[in-house]
């Protein structure tokens, strides 16, 4: 599968061309990792705290209908 090829690429070499060479050979610094995690959680939490649209609950209401029929 394509996944395997991708993994080999990840392990063995940097992607050619696109995006240019990495600025440093290693990954993001610990401070950057922390900053990224913090912002990911903020962004994720923002969406997760929005009220759930009724249409989703309407769909789930079908579970009750299905149950009612069985009884």
């Amino acid at each position, binding site marked *: 599968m394509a*996944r395997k090829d*991708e*993994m080999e690429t*990840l*392990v063995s070499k940097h992607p050619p061309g696109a*995006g240019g060479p*990495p*600025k*440093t050979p290693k*990954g*993001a*610094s*610990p*401070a*950057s*990792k*922390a*900053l*990224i*995690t*913090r*912002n*990911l*959680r*903020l*962004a*994720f*939490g923002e*969406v*997760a*705290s*929005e009220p*759930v*649209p009724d*249409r*989703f*609950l309407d*769909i*789930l209401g*079908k*579970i*009750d209908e*299905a*149950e009612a029929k*069985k009884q």
Partner: protein
Amino acid sequence: MTQLSAFKSDLIQLLPSLRAFARSLSHNPAQADDLVQDTLVKALANVERFEPGTNLRAWLFTILRNHYYSQLRKSKREVEDADGKFAARLSTRPEQDGSVDLEDFKVAFAQLAPDHREVLTLVGASGCSYEEAANICGCAVGTIKSRVNRARKRLADLLGLDEDANPLPTGGRMLEDTANV
């Protein structure tokens, strides 16, 4: 059928994070909610294939993810155009103290490839273990780890972090925060 009721209440509890996961994959909030809706319909249609007691979140995220990618294949060009709009808006530098504005962060995040957005969301934001993320994405744990590292590096580059001219402080608290990513 209390089992079905339990399934429903678990589903309702997972809706906010399912929505947030969808939003991290699809930039468009309306499209993201359509993804969630389709996921719920699929989940209900296949409810008997879910084994009670197993990981419902992983099951739902997998359905949503597979649906997203099958749609992405159908409308590749439209998605690329959408990405272009986000790319045009990014002109950001980190603050002197190394922090970045959340809106800038979102713009940079939106520029990442979908597979990078998803691993960061799963592992970084949703708190999935590497194993859970590997299960959801249908790949090896090692692949997830490499992908998370590359995604973080790419995001740091997009945000102008880690540049020599702007060294960042590495306080103990920040290091602690990275423990589970």
